[in-house]
């Protein structure tokens, strides 16, 4: 195959230049569209940034106020609970003391009853012994 002539090479170059120029045109259109989209996006975002900042500020204030109120209520509730707990503890101690006292009182009768039972048994034994001895005579 013969080598390309200068004229053919120039034709090729012309075609390439034309195609590149058209590609360049297409890129310019894309770039313009992207710039437009970017501008729209920026505009929307800038408005949003201000709005978000305001909302954030409001939320912080609202939250702080709300949180403070809740904290005070919780503190009051906690104090009441602590008071109740102290009362409950005292009642529990008292109950335990009463129980111990009752047990102690119960056990204080123990030796007397034992002594009475043993005394009774000894008396019964003695009476039976005397009776048996009399029978033997």
């Amino acid at each position, binding site marked *: 195959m013969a080598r390309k002539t200068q004229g053919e090479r120039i034709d090729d170059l012309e075609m390439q230049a034309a195609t590149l120029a058209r*590609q360049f045109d297409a890129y310019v259109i894309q770039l313009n*569209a992207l710039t437009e*989209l970017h501008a729209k996006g920026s505009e929307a975002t800038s408005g949003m940034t201000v709005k978000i900042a305001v909302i954030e500020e409001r939320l912080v204030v609202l939250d702080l106020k709300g949180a403070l109120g809740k904290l005070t209520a919780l503190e009051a509730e906690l104090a009441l609970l602590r008071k109740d707990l102290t009362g409950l503890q005292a009642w529990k101690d008292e109950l335990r003391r009463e129980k111990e006292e009752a047990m102690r009182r119960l056990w204080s009768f123990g030796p007397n009853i034992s002594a009475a039972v043993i005394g009774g048994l000894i008396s019964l034994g003695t009476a039976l012994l005397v009776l048996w001895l009399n029978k033997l005579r």
Partner: protein
Amino acid sequence: MPKDIQFPEVEPRYVFERDCLGFQALADGKPVECMVTGELFMTRFRARDMSEDSLRQAYREHQSEIQSIARDHIENGWLDEDGRVFLTTRFTRLSVTFSEPLASDPHVAAAHRMLTDIIGPNAGAVTVTWTCFAGVNVQERPSVHVSVIDPAISRQRSIAFQSKDWADTTTMRLRLASLWGALLQAQSRNLLLKSG
């Protein structure tokens, strides 16, 4: 798009500094200058050489065809910054096909207008097809596919539009320009390979 395009019966003028023949058109009464390069006269309309007489003769012989091409350019809005139409050897020969429901769709018409604007007047032979694809299920809206084809190199590039895409014209222009850019890239690669 101008509704009424006429070509007054006057002799074309020879533009020496551009090797062109210029004639006038009236688009809705507004004058539009149309220039046909000598190169185009030689390659397409069988002018013997670049002399004024040869160009005038070729113009007389192919007047209706030249005016038809010029009309096509005016209708597509392919005018330069000075409001002139330039017909070169690379003038755009657009072949368009719309699948049945799309022919009367205003969104598709607007998008096609955008695409022809992007393609411009010096793209050579280009085929554009607009096809409608129904969704898989009944609730799904049909999508519109557009393909641009360069018949010379048998390359095709396509994109699809969903119904929600029609609203944002900037994004649509961007996508159509990307589509056209992709075909031009294929053309460019093909030329590089051909040039060795």
